[in-house]
């Protein structure tokens, strides 16, 4: 219990900020049966008529957005228990709920609350999980997401990602030019926080493994450079500003190194590794073709990258310690921006599919390729930390919007923000507890 309080508190002060425009979610494709589940409104004991946040609403919305659950509307509930002892399983069987969540919020101090919840299997008539989590007004939303994560994992066997974040870049066209913003938001679109705002392009955000820092490319002063910014303090350090291109940063699994693309004065883009403490760079590729978009395998052994050494762009990998690059993708004329799932089993990429740039997921072992998006110019795939879902950018009219899709391609949803052209989403790692 105590551990939760500390980390959830950390996450809340890390990302608290004003929402710029809340993101709405619409489901564009749902290919699986949805499990009916009831999230009963939580009980409230404390000052005032209402609890600071409708926890049940947040949990139900999370489960609904996963595409795997159909929350039962409140008006269809025959009873509204707040503890397991009050549950009448017959009532829930009658409304065909397969699982029921009950809970309550108790105020324990001026800005201190206990949030407790229990999840029950209606068919077996038994409790699957129950927790009590301390919260403050500032941490209550993240506590609700953590509860949803535990419920989701218990019901599906897949770790929930409701308490994670997404970073992305927006470009807003104005009369006097464009404004670029690097934004971090909760994965449900709440708590949008602008990390950096610039009149020059911002590109290629990448999370550190501890979720505390973002690396990115900035074109301030009309040339590219790579920066690492600490989210809590806003402190930013320029880590690469060599002649020519400085681009495509991605953290090593231990967070101590960045893979990046350097072009040099002759413009030959190659993969380099930058040690963040010594600032020494090590060159991994030397081919005169474009080598870029490097990213580490989760075990740290390989760096996957895009290269057009064979003509069009294809995915290659090179041992992180140095060695001979080997080609990874062979299907299709265009495969770029490789990103491995955190479990190392799948490789996501931008794939040219009959004239459309789409997101494809390849099984690393079998090399079987599956196109999981349906747009014309989809880009920047990024796996959720549970390896089950990806987020990417697609086009809606002239603006980029975000979509998520399960790695099997069955559940696809749109996540749209009101802030201009949204691109380059990157899913944060799991918060550390």
């Amino acid at each position: 219990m105590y551990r939760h309080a500390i980390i959830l508190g950390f996450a809340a002060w890390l990302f608290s900020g004003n929402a710029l425009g809340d993101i709405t979610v619409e489901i564009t494709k749902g290919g699986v049966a949805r499990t009916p589940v009831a999230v009963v409104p939580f009980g409230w004991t404390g000052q005032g008529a209402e609890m600071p946040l409708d926890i049940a609403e947040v949990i139900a919305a999370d489960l609904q957005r996963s595409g795997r659950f159909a929350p039962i509307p409140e008006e269809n509930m025959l009873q509204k228990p707040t503890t397991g002892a009050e549950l009448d399983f017959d009532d829930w069987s009658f409304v065909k709920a397969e699982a029921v969540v009950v809970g309550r919020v108790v105020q324990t101090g001026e800005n201190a609350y206990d949030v407790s919840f229990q999840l029950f299997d209606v068919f077996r008539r038994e409790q699957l999980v129950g927790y009590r989590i301390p919260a403050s007004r500032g941490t209550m939303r993240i506590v609700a997401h953590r509860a949803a994560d535990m419920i989701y994992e218990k019901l599906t066997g897949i770790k929930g990602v409701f308490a994670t974040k997404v970073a992305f870049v927006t470009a807003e066209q104005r009369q006097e030019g464009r404004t670029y913003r690097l934004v971090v938001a909760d994965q449900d679109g709440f708590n949008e926080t602008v990390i950096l705002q610039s009149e020059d392009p911002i590109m290629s955000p990448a999370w550190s493994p501890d979720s505390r820092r973002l690396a990115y490319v900035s074109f301030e002063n009309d040339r590219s450079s790579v920066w690492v910014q600490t989210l809590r303090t806003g402190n930013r350090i320029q880590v690469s500003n060599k002649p020519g291109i400085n681009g495509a940063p991605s953290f090593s699994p231990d967070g101590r190194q960045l893979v990046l693309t350097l072009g040099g004065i002759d413009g030959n883009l190659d993969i380099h590794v930058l040690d963040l403490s010594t600032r020494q760079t090590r060159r991994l590729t030397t081919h005169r073709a474009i080598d870029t978009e490097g990213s580490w395998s989760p075990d740290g052994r390989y760096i996957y990258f895009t290269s057009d050494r064979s003509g069009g762009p294809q995915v290659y990998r090179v041992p992180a310690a140095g060695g001979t690059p080997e080609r990874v993708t062979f299907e299709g004329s265009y495969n770029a921006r490789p990103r491995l799932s955190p479990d190392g089993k799948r490789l996501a990429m931008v794939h040219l599919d009959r004239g459309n740039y789409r997101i494809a997921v390849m099984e690393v072992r079998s090399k079987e390729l599956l196109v999981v998006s349906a747009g014309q110019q989809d880009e920047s795939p990024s796996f959720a930390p549970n390896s089950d879902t990806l987020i990417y950018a697609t086009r809606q009219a002239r603006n980029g919007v975000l979509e998520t899709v399960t790695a099997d391609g069955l559940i696809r949803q749109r996540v749209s923000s009101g802030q201009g052209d949204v691109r380059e989403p990157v899913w944060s790692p799991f918060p550390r507890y």
Partner: protein
Amino acid sequence: MLNYKLAVTTLMIALLAGCASNTVPDPDPADSTYDAAGSGADTDVYGDDPMGSGEALGDDYTAGELTNVIYFDFDSSEVRADFTDVVARHALILANDASIRVRLEGHADERGSREYNIGLGERRSQSVRRMLMIQGASASQIATVSFGEERPVALGSDEDSWAQNRRVEIKYTN
């Protein structure tokens, strides 16, 4: 839109080249007249006509009469034949005055992956850079940058817009 731009560009080149058709430089970068430009003998290339472009450009190279934008074909970083003389004129300006500096800003259309498009934009900048250097400009005069698809001039998602965005802009920085 693109056709219009090309027409204007072609018209500009024709005007700059003067009335006599034989003053248009040979687009072949290997042509010896460009080596001559490197040694500063530009007036020989363009003749003594006071309306000739060699003199006019030398005095007023930022006036905008000479186009600063080179367009490229899809998936190509090769300078098209219709732009080789534009590059040649910029090379002449640089070769004639070692203090002049340019920045070549390479761009790509919006299709495909963003960082790979940075690479494509850079490849286009380098293509123009090499052509400038072959014709007498020195490496120290030229900086390159690629914005990939990040700074489009046309915002549509159609072939016309893409063609306008696949470009290198030659910017004089001093």
